[in-house]
Structures are given as C-alpha cells and as structure tokens.
C-alpha cells in the first residue's frame, strides 16, 4: 500500500517538475527565441512571472531524486552509471541556469555587459537542461541501456545518444516553451503582450507536434514500440485522445482572451496526459534494458521499512509544503 503512495509521489513530483520547472525552463527558451527588439520587455514580464517561484519549482527535482534513491536505490544507481553523461550535462545546466538567473537579478550593479553575459548563460542553459532531461527520460524507456556492453561508447554513450532519446529531448524543449508561453499569457494584462504570447504558444505547440512526430519516427528506427505502448492499452489510449481533444479546444478558445485560466489548465492537462499515457503504458517498468529486461518499480524497491518511512515522510511533508506553496502562488497572484 505504502509502496503505491510512494510511487504516486514519484510520478506527481516528476509531473510537477515538468509542469512548473518546465514553464521555468520555457521562459528561458522563449527568451532565446525572442527577437532582439523585444528581449527587454520579454525578460521583464518573465522575471515577474517566475522570480518569486522558481526556487520552489526547482525543488520537485530534488524530491524526485530523493524518492528514487531512498525508495528505488537499485534503479537510481543503475541510471547513474549508464546515464552518467547526460545527467552530468543536465546538472551543469541546472547550475548554470540557477546561478545566472539569480546573479542577473541580484547583481547590485546593472551594467549591460555583465547582464548580457548572465543572460547568455541563462538562455542557453534553459535550452540544454530540458533537452537532457528529455534525453534521460527517453533513454530510460528506449531500451538502449546495455549493462553487458564492454566498450565505453556502447555502455556510456549510445545508451542515450540515439535518435529516440534525442528526439524526446527536443520534444521536451518544445513542450517547456509551450507551457511557459501559456503561463505568461495569464501573467500580464497588456493586450499586445497577451497577443504576442498567444502567438508564441501556438508556434511552440506546432514545434511540439513536429517533435512529437519525430519521436514516433525515431521510435520506428530504434525499434522502440512506442505506438504499441500507447495504443495498446485503454488508459494510454484515452489519455492520448483526451490530450488531442484538449488541443483542439485550446486552439478554439486561445484567441478569447477572457479564458486565460482555462488555457493554462488545458495546457497543463495536455502535458499531464502525455506523461500519463507513456508512464501508464510502461508501468511498473521504469528502466528498460537492451536485452528486453527491465527494472520495475514494484520489485526493485527498498525494504518495506524504508518505503513506509519514506511514504510517511512524504505525506507529512506535503501537509506542510502544499499549503505553503499554495500561499506562495496566491500571494503573488494578487496584483500589488
């Protein structure tokens, strides 16, 4: 029983990191793809939107890691061995991004040269971090991790450097950009800005659809049976259909600027459905190896004492965290 609660928290933390942290990353991605004329304005709006909450959003990653290494230590250490390089690059992205963001805002002297320097680091790492996050997720499921490999390249490079993982990476980047654009639509009252971000959201969504198609294409080349996974079980199928319908609804209402909260909910819903669809189709498998064997969340878990304590810790912790987090979002929703 407690095991299922822990697993639920694990997926919830991953999903929330994707939604909230993803919108954060997306802010940087949008800044990267904004024309120079608009950069200043874009930066200001996005800073107001994510400044107070980005530290908290980042914590879902920590929760994910802690749940993995306490609850599923074997899965965690195997991933750390074979996905060492992409994890490392993602981490470098996290470091560069977090520090550049806060340095940019807390540097007491705001001269253009250093600000531009922080901005460069911020926007490029905002792109690299979710790219590798996606690559890691793709690799865990792609079946390219080969513990029997004897040479460096097969063991530590091709485990993640393959068409499928990389296309999942780009898909992730596009989704983050989409989430950020939608999130910011709800953050500003300026009609021109809202129009601009709605356009950006549409572009990012198109990019996501294209990258999604690439993921399917790559899955064919890498012999990952993605289509079978998703269309092969009712829950995943329903999730995918729901995501598609919500996409249509989103397009229909996106131009009505009155329904901005609904746009957010729909965008979040779409991303959740994508995660649920894939997550459910593979559940309880978390990492799949080249020989077809896999590591399951239901078998590769820690002893029951550790799981029980972890579950209690998470339940009690969320009693503190969730209201506080709610208050944080609420306090900065009220316009000053």
């Amino acid at each position: 029983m407690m095991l299922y609660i822990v697993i639920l928290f694990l997926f919830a933390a991953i999903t929330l990191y994707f939604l909230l942290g993803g919108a954060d990353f997306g802010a940087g991605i949008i800044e990267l793809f904004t024309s120079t004329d608009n950069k200043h304005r874009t930066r200001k709006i996005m800073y107001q939107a994510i400044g107070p909450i980005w530290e908290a959003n980042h914590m879902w990653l920590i929760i994910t890691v802690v749940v993995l290494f306490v609850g599923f230590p074997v899965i965690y250490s195997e991933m750390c061995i074979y996905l060492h390089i992409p994890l490392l690059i993602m981490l470098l992205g996290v470091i560069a991004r977090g520090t550049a963001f806060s340095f940019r805002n807390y540097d007491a002297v705001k001269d253009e040269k250093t600000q531009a320097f922080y901005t460069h680091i911020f926007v490029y790492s905002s792109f690299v971090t979710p790219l590798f996050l996606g690559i890691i997720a793709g690799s865990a499921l792609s079946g390219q991790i080969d513990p029997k490999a004897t040479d460096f390249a097969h063991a530590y490079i091709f485990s993640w450097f393959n068409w499928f993982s990389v296309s999942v990476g780009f898909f992730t980047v596009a989704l983050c950009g989409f989430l950020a654009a939608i999130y910011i639509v709800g953050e500003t009252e300026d009609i021109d800005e809202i129009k601009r971000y709605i356009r950006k959201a549409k572009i990012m969504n198109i990019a996501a659809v294209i990258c999604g198609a690439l993921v399917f294409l790559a899955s064919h080349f890498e012999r990952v049976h993605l289509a079978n996974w998703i269309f092969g079980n009712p829950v995943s199928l329903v999730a995918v259909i729901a995501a598609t319908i919500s996409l249509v609804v989103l397009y229909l209402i996106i131009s009505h600027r009155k329904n901005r909260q609904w746009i957010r909910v729909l965008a979040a819903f779409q991303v959740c459905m994508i995660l649920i669809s894939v997550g459910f189709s593979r559940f309880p498998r978390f990492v799949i190896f080249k020989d077809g064997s896999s590591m399951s969340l239901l078998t590769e878990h820690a002893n029951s004492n550790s799981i029980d304590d972890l579950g209690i810790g998470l339940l009690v912790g969320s009693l503190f965290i969730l209201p506080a987090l709610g208050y944080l979002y609420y306090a900065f929703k009220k316009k000053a």
Partner: protein
Amino acid sequence: MDDFLAARSQMALSLGFHIIYSCIGMVMPVFMAISHFKWIKTQDPVYKNITVAWSKGVAIFFATGAVSGTMLSFELGLLWPGFMKHAGPIFGMPFSLEGVAFFIEAIALGLFLYGWNRLNNWVHWTAGIIVGVSGVASGILVVAANSWMNSPSGFDFVNGQYINIDPVKAMFNKAWFSESLHMIIAAFSATGFAVAGIHALMIYRKQNVLFHTKAFKIAIIFGAAAAILQPFSGDLSAKNAAKRQPAKLAAMEAYFHTQEYAPLVIGGIPDTAAKKVNYGIEIPGLLSFLVHDNFKTPVNGLDKIPVKNQPPVAVTHYAFQIMVGIGVLMMLIGIIYFYELWKKKDLLSKSWFLKTFIWATPLGFIALEAGWTVTEVGRQPWIIQGVMRTSEAVTPMPGIQYSFYLFSFIYFTLSVAVIFLLKRQIQMVPELYDRKTA
C-alpha cells in the same frame, strides 16, 4: 590521476564548496531576520537597509547553495553508485526530511524576497524566520546523514547483505547529535566572523559607518557566542569519535602507540613510517583526560588498527591542528568582544580592534574546511565506517578525471562570480542600501 582518486577529489571539491555556500545560506537569514525585527520594532531605516542588503546576499548564496546541493545529491549516485544502492534506503530518511525542509525554505525565501510592500510586516518577518529555521533544520538533517557514515546503525550487515533496516534508528545514530551540533555552531561562528569582518573593513575605511556598525554588531554577537561555545561541542565530538572511530581519533592526534597517560600532541610533523611525530609538543596525560576524563586510562592508538584500515595520518592530523588552532583563536577574539561589550568601551573606533576582525574574516571558513577534512579523510578507507570501503562504492565508468577537471573549473568560476557579486553589493551600499529614510 586514476578514476578512484578523481572521484574522491571531485566529491571533496563539491562538498568543500557546498559547505561554504550552505553555511552562509543557512546563517545569513537568521541575521537578516534579526535586523528585520529591529526595523519593525524601532522603525530605524538603517535596519531596513541592512535587511535589504543582506537579503541580496542571502538570495545569491541560497541560489549557489541550492544548485551545489542539487549537484551533490546527484553526485552521490554518479560517483558512488555502489554506496547509494545499499545506503540510500538506510540513511535516506534525513535526506527526505531535508528535502521537505529545503522546499519550505525555498517557498519562504520567495515570500520574503518578493514580499516587501506586498505582505503584512509580521507575515513577511515570519517568512524570513522560516527561511532561517528550515535552513538550520536542513543543516542538522544533512549532517545526520553524514554522521551515519561515521556511525552506521539501523541495519545488520550479514554475509554482505543489509538486513533489518530501520531508517529512524539510522537517522538517530550515535554521532548525529554531536556532529550536527558541532556543524551548526561552526556555521554560525564562521559566517558571523566573515560577515562581521567585511563590515569591520568598511568601518575601518570610514564608509557608511552607521550602517556597517549596526550590521557588524548583529553578526558578531552570533559569531562570538558560537566561537566561545564551540570548544565544548568539539570536546563532545572528540569523545564520540574516540568511542566509535578510534582510528580517526588516533589519526587526528597522530597518536601511534597505545599508552597510559596518553599525551596530547600539539603541532608536529607525523612520520608514518617511523610511527612518531617530530617537533610536536607533547602534554602527557591530556589526551587520556580529554577522552576518558582520567589522566591515566590508555587511549587506543594506531597500533591497535590494521594498517589497511588506517586513515591518512598526516592530512588528518594537520587538518585537526588547523581547526583547533583557529577555533581557539576565534574563541579568544570572541571573549575580547564580549569583554568590550560588558565594559561598554567603544572599541569600534580603535583601529587594532577593527583590524583583528578584518584579519579574522576567513578564519572560520578555513576551520570549517579543516574540520570537514578531519571528518571525511579521518573515516577513510571506509565510506561506511567498518562496513563498506570507499573503493567498493566508486562508479565503474572510466574517465572520471575529466569530470573532476570540469567541476574544478565550475566551482572556481562560481566562487569568482560570488566574490565579484559581493564586492559589487558592498560597492553599492552608499547608493542602494544606506538611505536615510525607509
């Protein structure tokens, strides 16, 4: 450089930097909350200015502390998968609680930094206090996880299997209290002295004297009080180490031969081959007294430990000497400060007094690093004392030295950036933070 040494160096480097960022990130919010409280109570704009100025420092250090901490939680797995595979479920409890504390800290920090003019004064102040309290709680929890490596408990190790796991017992292992206490006090004294030192420098240069004087006073009260308390907690820690890690204690003291009236060796150059210390000052019986409260009782020396289980003696001994030496010095400076406070002398206008604090700025952090070296190097060759060797835990992936070079570069750059940013904060005090009205 081989992979094992590279992995150890990278871990040492990461911890060495994280410990500084996180100590400042943990203690500064407390200072900030004190000055914020004084502002709410007195409405003296200087205190508001100090609070705002310090909060910028907190934000910078929180960000660097958070990212370097994230790195560490991954590095545990990236560098030591063999360790995490077994240890994760046993000592993970404090980590999961720390995750909660850290989360709350991040939320409260968001509220504090962006809450000016948005939140009610006392709600705002409470957010600051929560940042401080959860920061200290995280510190205690992380050290409790580390102390488990020094004093493993909450499981049975039978035929290479880890069974009967009890995470709560593992968390409350026998070293958690003394180690956490020592660490928290160290954080307060190191940060207190560093912050006070920087403000002392500005007073010495006669810049924004009122602002820096009030800031100095808040920081040094904590720094000095912590420095005076630290030797007591140190004694507790040493007794604990003697009981649970005799090899570590013997290496700290460079104490090669078990004997009655065991001497305390001050300074000196250990000669591991000849098993003696050259040029050290020996005080007979003092080590016995410190460990057993009795001058005669023998203390176990390195001769009781098989050579393959002995930590590097010289490094541990030097690090320990540096830590204790600096600790004593800081305690004396702390006593001088309180004497001054008691006698109501205005020593802040005396240049020798200011210079003392200016010179003392980095001392606490040097002691902190030295103390950390004692804890970690003194535990070698074990990653889990007496259970798992560090060499058994390392990742099978080759090429770790490149990762080490990369990390060295990153931490070096990050430190340069932080120093650069702090310089600019101080440079901007007259314009941004020393306004006459709130």
